[in-house]
């Protein structure tokens, strides 16, 4: 992957409203988005992800900070002078013109010659498999088709960066899955940088090269999907992405310089993490699928009593109340009779996989 920076967001803030009604949507956010990457802004609604996208597109004006595109500041440019295009959440297709006219709109606004527009539009129609509906009006086609037209329209001027604002949220589950793969393929084929906004963590993990997790106007963590999932830096990130267990623990350095975590109950496990909040009381997180249940406490890292067994198709979630009075969930794959042996009231031990303990920053 090329490591040239496509878009730099430097110390950007955005505040809406005045005085008492003031809302801070972005609080001094900085992030570099590389060329040719599929970059996702992930977070709950109201976290500022869409605002950041609209700032890059030029629909809003930053209250502070700078936005660079290939090293050039664009904060003062109006949207129609930025080589950046957007796929809108509502698609925002022009209802008074046809599908091909929609796709050619950007090019004709750039005063490109007619035959070039025609060629590009044809290529785009082919790319999104909409050739047969070229002369339809946009209110006469289905939601999935509108989605493709919106994509083709934004890609037609061949922007340096393509911004996608929750473009799949209006589609039903099956279509959404299909489009996820198509989008990913499209990004590879065109080589355009995609900045994708979503609140769906699964979507973010499957599609992205890198993900930025946002909450309350700040970026909490930037990394590959695997980094984010396996090594969440903060409680919010761990909680927002996938199911997880939280425990209080002690962190200290052993004689040979290794970092050891003392679990509730007294057992210690090593952690291979390199960034620590410092020794002492810490919060740790353990994914439910990285723990397993065993009989008897001898080899167990944690022990407790099962208080609920919840069957959910692929696997079974076993809810354990630890001796330290903290809840802990273990996910047991439903293979053979493995899950059948666990029942409420049973005393069990929990074995953790090596490297499963993640120390949180907060």
């Amino acid at each position: 992957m090329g490591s040239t920076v496509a878009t730099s967001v430097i110390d950007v803030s955005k505040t809406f409203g005045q005085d008492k009604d003031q809302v801070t949507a972005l609080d001094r956010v900085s992030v570099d988005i590389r060329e040719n990457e599929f970059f996702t802004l992930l977070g709950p609604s109201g976290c500022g992800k869409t605002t950041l996208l609209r700032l890059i597109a030029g629909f809003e004006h930053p209250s502070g900070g700078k936005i660079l595109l290939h090293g050039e500041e664009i904060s003062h440019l109006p949207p129609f002078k930025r080589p950046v295009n957007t796929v809108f959440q509502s698609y925002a297709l022009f209802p008074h013109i046809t599908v091909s006219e929609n796709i050619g709109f950007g090019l004709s606004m750039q005063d490109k010659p007619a035959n070039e527009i025609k060629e590009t539009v044809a290529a785009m129609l082919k790319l999104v498999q909409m050739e047969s509906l070229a002369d339809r009006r946009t209110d006469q086609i289905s939601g999935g088709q509108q989605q493709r037209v919106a994509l083709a329209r934004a890609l037609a001027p061949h922007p340096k960066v393509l911004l996608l604002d929750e473009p799949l949220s209006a589609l039903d589950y099956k279509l959404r899955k299909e489009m996820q793969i198509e989008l990913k393929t499209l990004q590879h084929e065109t080589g355009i940088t995609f900045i994708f906004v979503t609140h769906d963590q699964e979507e973010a993990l499957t599609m992205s090269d890198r993900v930025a997790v946002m909450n309350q106007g700040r970026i909490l963590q930037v990394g590959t999907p695997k980094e984010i999932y396996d090594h969440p830096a903060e409680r919010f990130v761990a909680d927002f992405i996938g199911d997880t267990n939280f425990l209080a623990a002690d962190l200290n350095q052993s004689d040979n310089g290794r970092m050891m975590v003392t679990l509730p109950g007294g057992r210690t496990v090593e952690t291979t993490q390199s960034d620590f909040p410092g020794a002492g009381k810490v919060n740790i997180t353990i994914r439910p699928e990285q723990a397993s249940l065993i009989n008897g406490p001898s080899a167990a890292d944690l022990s407790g009593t099962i208080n609920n067994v919840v069957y959910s198709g692929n696997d079974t979630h076993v809810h354990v109340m630890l001796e330290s009075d903290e809840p802990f969930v273990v996910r047991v794959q439903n293979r053979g009779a493995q899950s059948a042996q666990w029942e409420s009231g049973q005393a069990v031990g929990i074995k953790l996989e090596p490297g499963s303990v993640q120390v949180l920053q907060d």
Partner: protein
Amino acid sequence: MNSSAPGRQLSSVERVALKRESRRNILLCTPAMIVLFFAASGPLLVMLVYSFLTPGDYGGVVYKLSSDGWFRVFFHQDIFDETVSVASAHLSIFWRSIKLSLLTTIAALILGFPTAYFIATRPVKSRNFWLFLVTIPFWTNLLIRTFAIMELIRNRGLVNNVLMKFGVIEQPIQMLYTDFAIMLGMTYVYLPLMILPLYASMEKLDFRLIEAGYDLYANRFRVLRKVIIPLVKPGIVAGSILVFIPSLGAFVTPRVLGGGKNMMLGNLIELQFGQGRNWPLGAALSISLLLIVMVAMLLYVKNMQKNKGEQN
């Protein structure tokens, strides 16, 4: 948060964008504002000034301050012995205007309420058609509609003719040029103004509440009184004010149906600019009318705001 201080500083890009937008808005509104100022608001101010000037002998004014116009709204000075008495002629016209407007409002409410309810209980698809039937007369010429009423009720009009033919009466009833005629005409021309807001609030009526009313042993009359009317009260108030205001300022209907004698405020005002030749008095009367209308309008706005507050 870095910017919790009140009156935060806008960044330069934000300021430029805001300035550009507000300049654009002002520029777009200016031409309309100029025309409206020149031919709607401005003249009202000029008229206010005129109400304090001295009447000219042949209409118009003499540019000399005088309270004569306002004085004559309420008092009458005898030409010969200069004794001052209450201007009973004016006051009775004020009273007639208010009385006829109130009666018109009540008549329109009695007719309009069932009609609006009828429309609101039609199937959704046909409701628009019924509404359209209400709107059509509203957008047709008021003078023509008044004229239509005039033709019906005149002494040799259709109503009297039919009544005489069937022997109900022997002599035609004098209906034209009476207060009744004015009231009938105003009810006729302003009825859509009652039905439309009533319908608007009835359309939102939750019929499960009416079912609950019947379920709790209320009979039809009680459901109407205790459930429906309280729920659509905002529509009743809105419709009543929308009928009352134009009735009070009516000019064409009383002139055509009331003849020369049964004047309302609008006709009294006209008189001052015609045969009366007392422009300051006319201006003062106009402003009085405007003030009464403003009070009614204020009630209307209050009512609207209260509803909005209740809905939130």
